[in-house]
């Protein structure tokens, strides 16, 4: 889960990483008296905000008011701006890059930094990027910072500040359950001080039980996805016309792949998980029906989730939501014969093999 820049900077401040003076504006009355030139930054979760017109500069009270008015309520690449961050304008001497992320291969934190920042790290020359896997049992220690400073050829005063920021960044990575914590750019300003001019933090959504303060509505999710997620279903909207329900993330993905290979177009991803409850199955159709598909494919391999339980759930849903679209079901595994009989009595097609079910649903859905 991504945090907004202002939230990330609050975390930085809490842990003692220097950030520019600033405040959040949600409505014009939040604007404070103008004192010095400021930057007005849209709070949206997108890289390249500046290029998309999401950042404005103000050298007077009037420019500040105009800038805020223009940004608040506007849309930047389809994302609504509901908050802006007003910050002192910095006297930039140099822009650097630093981040700590999860390295999946070593299952450890990895430090990445470069004396060249302010641009996407992918576009920086590889030989100018310092990377170091941190042994989580040892944790961060100053020798890592010294190696980084030597590599980046920072002068001693800047290096000292940099090392202090690294220690705090590592503390944030661990204490706040980050997948990524990034400062880009980390600026050297006029008085020779380092300042975190931007923040990017990705928090492990599985850790929210101990970080309630970070619970934000994911702006990248659709209202229907949020609704289904709140009911415990793993649900993603796609742009096709065949509604899909399956059990297990891997099998659900494989179902979408099989449909696509057969030139069918899935409308969604819906993973029932390891339920063995007919009501959970039936209730999941609410989100499928709201997505208005032309047809519905249910693909179940019965293990923990038993086929007759699923069949009962499908039959319940058909009546409850008055489903007129064709439903094609694949049932295999534990109690599949019983399940198929229940479906037959409810007038629903079912197949033992995934391929047959996929072919069938693509055929009856037809073109667009």
């Amino acid at each position, binding site marked *: 889960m991504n945090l907004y820049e202002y939230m990330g900077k609050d975390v930085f401040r809490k842990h003692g990483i220097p950030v520019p003076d600033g405040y959040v504006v949600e409505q014009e009355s939040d604007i404070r008296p103008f004192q010095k030139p400021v930057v007005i930054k849209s709070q949206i979760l997108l890289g390249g905000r500046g290029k998309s017109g999401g950042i404005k500069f103000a050298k007077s009270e009037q420019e500040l008011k105009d800038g805020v008015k223009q940004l608040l309520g506007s849309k930047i690449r389809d994302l609504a701006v509901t908050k802006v961050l007003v910050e002192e304008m910095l006297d930039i001497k140099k822009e650097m890059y630093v981040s700590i992320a999860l390295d999946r291969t070593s299952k450890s934190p990895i430090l990445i930094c470069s004396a060249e920042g302010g641009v996407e790290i992918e576009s920086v020359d590889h030989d100018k990027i310092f990377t170091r896997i941190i042994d989580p049992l040892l944790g961060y220690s100053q020798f890592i910072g010294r190696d980084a400073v030597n590599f980046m050829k920072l002068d001693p005063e800047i290096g000292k500040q940099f090392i202090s920021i690294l220690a705090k960044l590592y503390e944030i990575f661990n204490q706040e*359950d980050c997948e990524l914590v990034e400062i880009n750019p980390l600026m050297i300003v006029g008085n020779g001080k380092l300042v975190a001019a931007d923040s990017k933090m990705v928090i*492990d959504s*599985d850790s929210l039980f101990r970080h309630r303060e970070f619970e934000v509505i994911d702006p990248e999710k659709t209202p229907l996805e949020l609704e289904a997620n709140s009911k415990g279903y793993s649900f993603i909207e796609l742009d096709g016309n065949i509604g899909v329900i399956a059990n297990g*993330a*891997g099998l659900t*993905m494989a179902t*979408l792949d099989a449909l696509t290979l057969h030139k069918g177009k899935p409308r969604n991803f819906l*993973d029932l998980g390891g339920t063995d409850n007919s009501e959970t199955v039936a209730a999941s159709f609410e989100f499928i029906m709201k997505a208005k598909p032309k047809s519905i494919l249910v693909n179940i391999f019965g293990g923990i989730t038993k086929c007759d339980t699923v069949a009962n759930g499908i039959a319940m849903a058909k009546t409850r939501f008055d489903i007129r679209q064709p439903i094609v079901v694949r049932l295999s*595994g534990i109690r599949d014969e019983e399940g198929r009989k229940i479906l037959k009595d409810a007038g629903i097609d079912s197949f033992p093999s995934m391929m047959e079910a996929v072919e069938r649903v693509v055929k009856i859905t037809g073109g667009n």
Partner: protein
Amino acid sequence: MSVFVDRNTRVVVQGITGKQGSFHAGEMLAFGTNIVAGTSPTKAGTKFNDKVPVVSSLREAMQYEPNATMISVAAPYVKDAAFEAIDAGIKLLYILTEHVPFHDSMDIYHNAKRKGIVMLGPNGPGITGVASQCKIGIMPGKIFRKGNVAVASRSGTLTYEIVDAVTKSGRGESTVIGLGGDPVVGLNYIDVLQQFEKDPETEQIVLVGEIGGSNEELAAAYIKKHVKKKVVAYITGRSAPPGKRMGHAGAIIEKGVGTAESKIKAFNEAGVKVADYPINVPDLLE
């Protein structure tokens, strides 16, 4: 003998009286797994299924000499339960629980590794040693038949689908391992490939991969160099749009890394044939 588990595997179930824990412990007993004890904070002193002693802590369970554990406690308590098992000297740690914070998994993994403990999961279906009749985890017992095909997978149901297809094709399995769908899990493909290559029961290997990360690519490079046995694969998530997590926390294409194309290409270059559909996996086997 199967890999990682065998007839001498003695299992303790941490959380044996919970909804998940009790159901799966029952299924494991039915498969033939030797469950020697279970823990429960509230039901110590009772017997599970009239035969497995239930105690209040892992320390107490050690009197029954377990060497493997299945952890089935709620996500916030997994780290503590795993540390308890590591501290007690358990040799194989399987975490069934989903939604464990990966920072916790990272701590568990590195501490387990330091003590030479094998960690499996979190968020995977576990391990089934078919010939040794030892199943730790949640795989449906009825899909297996003894044979020479080893399977390693990052997902659950998809594993059952493929195992079922292998069994129905007239073949059978040696050991089936679910690695887990999280960004940080205990075993990688390479860890299990090493074991499968050495295992006299295993003659061919199926790897079931999915989008996200680069473990499949690393496995392909390893196979090219070190694996002489036949390996085939299936990769799911070909149709997944970038930036969307497809159910598993690990299954996401970020900045072009972790795509199905990249994984299929890496496998093909290592001489590993990749099936288009799960059902076609047996067609690629001997």
